[in-house]
């Protein structure tokens, strides 16, 4: 069973006056089949955790370990992490002009699966997945994220999640900027992947709204660069009622 283990993770970014520590010792274990919601106020370091796990060059790991089934993730390049089974659905997916969605998806699937998917079954797979996410077939011929609405970008991220079938899926504020219909469609996509029992999900969000559609097994409150409290789904209800104030007081600056 795939397990992602994060131990005492410290991460810094370059700021104007030298490096600034964002993550200050994160401990978390995510197993295949589990869903962990990570909730926290803006600036608490949630997205830094997501991008650090995916290997974004902006973030410097200054301490701690991350392993996937015992393999050192931090030693891997960005593409190696993806091929090892780590997937990051981004909050702000990047435009790639002149590269069509269909070309991108196939190139990516080829890299992840280690061989080019058979054309006929692949076309059918993409088409059916897009239908379930209520995406127009013409979408496949558009350039990656170019001119996409916020909802289209997020559907496109979840389309990739469904097609690439990672071991660990990190969803970075996938719910932000979505209306209720889009939120439901995107959540259904995530749930289809979760129901396979093959993926461990790290659901990063600012709001409890998405947890009505995606039921977490664990909820962690993120504050001041580390996990401040962990619990079950009931912790989300408490956050809904009380907000993050209890965690930010005397903690993070703004």
């Amino acid at each position, binding site marked *: 069973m795939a397990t992602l283990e994060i131990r005492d993770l410290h991460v810094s970014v370059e700021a104007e006056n030298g490096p600034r520590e964002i993550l200050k010792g994160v401990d978390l274990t995510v197993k295949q089949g589990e869903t962990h919601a990570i909730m926290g106020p803006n600036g608490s370091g949630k997205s830094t955790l997501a991008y650090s796990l*995916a*290997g*974004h*060059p902006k973030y410097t790991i200054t301490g701690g370990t991350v392993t996937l089934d015992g393999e050192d993730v931090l030693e891997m*390049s*960005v*593409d190696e*992490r*993806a*091929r090892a089974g780590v*997937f*990051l659905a*981004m909050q702000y*997916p*990047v*435009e*790639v*002009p*002149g*590269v069509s969605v269909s*070309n*991108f998806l196939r*190139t*990516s699937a080829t*890299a*992840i699966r280690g061989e080019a998917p058979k054309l006929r079954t692949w076309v059918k797979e993409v088409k059916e997945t897009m239908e379930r996410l209520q995406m127009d077939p013409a979408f496949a011929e558009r*350039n990656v994220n170019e001119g996409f609405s916020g909802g289209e970008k997020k559907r496109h991220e979840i389309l*990739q999640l469904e097609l*690439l079938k990672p071991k660990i899926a990190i969803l970075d504020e996938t719910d932000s900027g979505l209306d209720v219909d889009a939120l439901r469609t995107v959540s259904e996509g995530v749930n289809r992947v979760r129901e396979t029992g093959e993926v461990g999900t790290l659901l990063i969000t600012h709001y409890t709204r998405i947890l009505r559609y995606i039921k977490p097994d664990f909820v962690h409150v993120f504050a001041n660069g580390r996990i401040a409290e962990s619990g079950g789904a009931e912790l989300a209800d408490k956050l809904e009622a009380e907000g993050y104030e209890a965690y930010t007081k005397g903690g993070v600056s703004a």
Partner: protein
Amino acid sequence: MAEAQNSPTLRSARAGGSLPVGSTTAGSIAVAAESTVATRMSAPPSFDVADFPVPHGREEEWRFTPLERLKGLHDGTAKADGSIKAEVNAPDGVTVESVGRDDARIGKAGTPVDRVAAQAFSSFEKATVVSIPKETVLTEPVRVALHGEGGTTFGHTVFEIGAFAEVVIVIDHTGDAVRSANVDFLIGDGAKVTFVSVQDWDDTAVHCSQHNALIGRDATFRSVVVTFGGDVVRLHPRISYAGPGGEAELFGLYFTDAGQHQEHRLLVTHNAPHCKSNVVYKGALQGDSAHAVWIGDVLIQAEAEGTDTYEMNRNLVLTDGARVDSVPNLEIETGEIVGAGHASTTGRFDDEQLFYLMARGIPEAEARRLVVRGFFAELVQQIGLPDVEERLIAKIEAELEASV
């Protein structure tokens, strides 16, 4: 991608489109001086090389060019001591003649604008005239293959396209040469001409050429300039109109490697009413001292009412050490136009694009290829000639392979 945009010179109101402003962070962008197309040249156009002073490098039209690498084409020391193998493949119905300089068709499409172009005009012995009779619609291209075999050569070619004729012309440059040769297009009314010029020279070659197209009433001229090779390549695609209703599409694609100087200096003179022009040049640069220069001048004269023009230059800087000078310049002498605009952007290779693709398992080298192919894709697709498109894609792939 992180783009830097420069401030174009705009001399009159009523220009359509959005006019980008800002400063550059990648490569370098020069901003055009406040002067007119004609007066910033150091001498008026002439067929006689003696009418041009020897450039010293500070003139507006020479300030980007490494004169010391021109092998004497600019100062009269270059002698016609080389050879170039020319193969002309013309479909039935096309005539190819070798004529003297007294032939009336020579020089009709345009006059040399700098000393090197005038040197070519003053130095060629025989000119080649390729004629496509009126109303001839060719299904196969006219192909001219020029292969340099070393040394300096001069030349002059005229394509005379009759009214309502349709033709694709491909000139292919390969080998090693110091080549200065001008190409004229006399385009009859209603004709449709596509011209592809491929500069696939050895990296030692020097190539200077002025392309003059005189577009007839309601005629269409589409030019595709593709520059990959050469030590120094300096081209002047120039358009003027012989009557109303003409259309020009000027596409360019260059891939400038370490040490190469590739310079494209365009001028579209809107001298007739209701004509269109559209310029799209895209270049990628990689390696130390790779230098690309793009000058895009559009002049809308007082009589050119109803003009519709747009020009765009985009550069993708793949590595440190490369330099881009991109200077769009639009001069408008009449307000009665449909639209006029331009854009110039130079961007570094975007690390966020790379991260996004790699985060989907795509290895770095392949991710870079996808981004660069994507950058050129929109332009390549517009060419409309499958064999040229395939060759371009293969060439871009080869350039990228060489870089990793």
